[in-house]
């Protein structure tokens, strides 16, 4: 019971921290990685809340597909910047 509570508190703190860092970091690549980390932590949170269905969807769509899309967008943006300096 106590371990569970400690884990939940740690999880909540990590969620808040990664969310804040993802918004505040100036490096856009780091922001995307932090967003993916946030998504994976959110998956853990859903699993802790006994909602495995939402946890599955969050891991696949929130962290996986959205992260890949954002990384792709960064690649396109960087390519465009190099094309037209």
């Amino acid at each position, binding site marked *: 019971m106590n371990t569970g509570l400690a884990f939940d508190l740690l999880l909540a703190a990590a969620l808040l921290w990664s969310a804040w860092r993802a918004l505040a970091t100036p490096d856009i690549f780091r922001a995307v990685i932090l967003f993916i980390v946030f998504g994976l932590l959110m998956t853990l949170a859903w699993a802790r809340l006994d909602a495995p*269905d939402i*946890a*599955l*969807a969050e891991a*696949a*769509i929130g962290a996986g*597909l959205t992260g890949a*899309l954002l990384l792709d967008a960064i690649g*396109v943006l960087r*390519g465009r910047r190099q094309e037209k300096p």
Partner: protein
Amino acid sequence: MKAVVLAAAAFAALLVAVMLDLPAAAVDLPAAVAANLSHSGVAHPVTAVLLNFRGYDTLLEIGVLLLALLVVLAVSPHAEEPAGAARVSVEPVLQAIARIAVPLMLLAAVYLLWAGAHRPGGAFQAGAVLAAAAVLLHLAGLLPGWHAPKLLLRAGLAGGFLVFLAAAAALLARGALLAYPPAAAGALILVIESALTVSLGLTLAGLFLFLSRDEA
């Protein structure tokens, strides 16, 4: 900056206060779901709600996803170049991993679809795994980006929505939208979910692959 942080903190505190202040739900939905689960054709309450009790919502959700993909198709300049060969600069390790992982991901998608009837899983998760497999193949350089969708791809994209709509229309004669006959509910849900899985996988992958320009 400080003002924004303070405002966000105040808003968060307000949200928490409102959440704690909410009255208890007037209708005991979990009990209602549990009472009707035996008529729904599936044994997992979440799937029963998504595909049977509130199938209407899911039907519209699929429509919204399809609309989103249509918008992507409308804004992506797909006519400018023919679908070229896959990226030249590919990493052999990534390709090898993709070749091993993608068959396993397909297997996982089918398992998730099948498991949806009695445990967490279902069409959305299976479709997302399918889409992730397609994205992985694309990133490894094994699957070129999509340009103008041909007839087969269009059929795949719209198929889930059409099958769902056809089931809804066929059952409309029974008086209510998407009120499955209990005897056939399980089979109907499986058919709809299978079509949805393919369509969702293609749609989610399409959001990625139609926008991809194959830039090395």
